[in-house]
């Protein structure tokens, strides 16, 4: 009987099934990027040899690139190259795409992480407050924030933020990650400037980096905040209706303890899922935000390559984002299974 199987075994089975789904999805991701790469109206052979090359040179290069093979063999080669960490070479930067991604990714990570932290630190208390006092002001605030969060274009909000806080008020630094003066001062150990400058003990660079980071991170953080607070609210409302809350009140527990310990404790697991999802969604917002703020991250790398028809870079970047997205979803799913007894 399924119910009497040991827990570890059941979890193992679930993990196995999950791993199967992941492998299948990654295979699908690769198929999509591969096919997109084949649809491009640019002939890669012509791009390599130029349009004056004689027919035999054209044919030779074509077979060197493996383009004379049937599609499924080309796909097989593509998959094995990707699994060996070879995403091809970027035409624009003339580096291997993987090297580029390693260089650009930390900037996106820094931006998205700061934004998510802001969303969580403000969004969860706000959501709890709204659930406790339904239809009072925190509740209305969340409604409006949520509605605007689904309606405002992130790039426009970024531009307006630049006009107001940088150009008019001068509260924050302008586009880019650092002032030109501070660039390349700190040794890039992790690529995340805040950590690198802290490690090097260079607090001037650190504070300059914060001044540059604060506006784009707040803009992105707003979208995270809108989502997290909304979800916290509905999860908490559901918990506060439960009978154990009544029991706790009857026992004479303080209201603060009931809300923050008992009810919030019970929504922690789904809440982590929500946060992971919002983190994944910020990847998307970061493409546009990075363009507005000239933030040298993965999003800007993808769009720049796109405008220069640098397909290897575009597809490598897309694949990278897809994998990160998948990993975050997987992580939240796994967490749910491990910590929520009902999901077992």
């Amino acid at each position, binding site marked *: 009987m399924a119910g009497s199987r040991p827990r570890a075994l059941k979890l193992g089975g679930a993990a196995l099934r999950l791993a199967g789904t992941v492998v299948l999805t990654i295979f699908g991701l690769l198929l999509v990027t591969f096919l997109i790469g084949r649809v491009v109206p640019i002939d890669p052979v012509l791009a390599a040899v130029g349009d004056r090359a004689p027919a035999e040179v054209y044919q030779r290069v074509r077979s060197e690139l493996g383009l004379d093979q049937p599609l499924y063999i080309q796909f097989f080669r593509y998959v094995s190259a990707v699994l060996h960490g070879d995403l091809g070479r970027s035409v624009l930067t003339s580096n291997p795409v993987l090297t580029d991604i390693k260089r650009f990714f930390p900037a996106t990570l820094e931006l998205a992480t700061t934004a998510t932290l802001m969303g969580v630190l403000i969004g969860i208390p706000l959501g709890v407050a709204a659930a406790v006092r339904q239809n009072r002001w925190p509740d209305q605030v969340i409604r409006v924030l949520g509605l605007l969060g689904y309606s405002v274009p992130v790039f426009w909000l970024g531009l307006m933020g630049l006009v107001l806080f940088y150009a008019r008020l001068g509260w924050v630094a302008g586009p880019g990650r650092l002032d030109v003066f501070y660039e390349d001062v700190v040794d890039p150990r992790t690529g995340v400037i805040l950590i690198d400058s802290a490690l090097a003990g260079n607090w001037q660079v650190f504070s300059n980096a914060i001044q540059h980071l604060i506006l784009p991170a707040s803009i992105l953080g707003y979208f995270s905040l809108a989502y997290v607070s909304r979800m916290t609210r509905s999860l908490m409302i559901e918990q506060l209706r439960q009978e154990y809350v009544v029991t706790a009140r009857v026992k004479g527990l303080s209201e603060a303890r009931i809300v923050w310990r008992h009810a919030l404790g019970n929504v922690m697991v789904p809440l982590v899922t929500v946060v992971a999802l919002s983190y994944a969604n910020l990847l998307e917002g970061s493409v546009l935000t990075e363009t507005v703020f000239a933030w040298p991250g993965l999003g800007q790398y993808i769009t720049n390559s796109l405008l220069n028809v640098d397909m290897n870079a575009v597809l490598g970047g*897309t694949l990278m984002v897809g994998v990160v997205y998948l990993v975050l979803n997987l992580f939240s799913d796994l967490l749910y299974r491990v910590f929520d007894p009902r999901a077992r």
Partner: protein
Amino acid sequence: MSEVVAARGWHAWLTAEAPASRLQARLVNAYATSLGFLRNPLALIGLAIVIALLLIAAAAPLLAQDLSLRLRPPDATHWFGTDELGRDIYSRVLYGARITLGIVTLVVLIVAPLGLFIGCVAGYRGGMLDAVLMRITDVFLAFPRLILALAFVAALGPGIENAVIAISLTAWPPYARIARAETLILRDSDFINAARLLGASWPRIVFLHVMPLCLSSVIVRVTLDMAGIILTAAGLGFLGLGAQPPSPEWGAMISTGRKYILDQWWVAAFPGLAICLVSLGFNLLGDGLRDVLDPKQR
């Protein structure tokens, strides 16, 4: 029927507990639904915004102003100021309504029937077909939408038609999911079994019995999705991959306005406000429709 109406008025007829005819039953249902919708002020605001969008798109030539001086701040003649070529931003925003409406309509016309068809067939037929189709939707859902649309535009080339195709390619999976979930519930109900026993073929059952019943959830999803489609299209336009200047697409207008953002803020500000307002309208309308048409999703 006429005796009841004569005796107790139309209101009683429309709210009858026991409708006497099929027509009356339908009207009673529609009346109750529309009352629910009319009681929701936010949904009405949303509806008003969407109707205003439709009117503006239709009447743009009548409302637009003449074009003369460049980069003028907003004043009495040029309500939203002028851009770098002296074009009146207010007039361009009005014409942009047509483009936005066009993109949204096209995407919805492609995506909703496609998703509905795939979802219903997968749900009704089950088995291998279902498994394969659902894995495909999984793969599409595994990419963030904008990034996938970017990759498709990269392959197809920039431009408004390709933007529509790219957005459609990324937008259908949720519809397929919804339609499939609904179909799974309907599949084993008595009236479907009855139709099957009468010898109806599966396409007949799917097209005539299952699909119409999945429509309301799909319509709700469409309205809630409109804002997302508008934002994605504007994002592509902003990145220079959607509609190309001089087209007055709102995203592309913001992209040009970006060059003058520090001194002439209005060039980018007003098209952005238009996007916000229209997305907000669709969101409010969608919320309202969901509450009325689909109470279980609340």
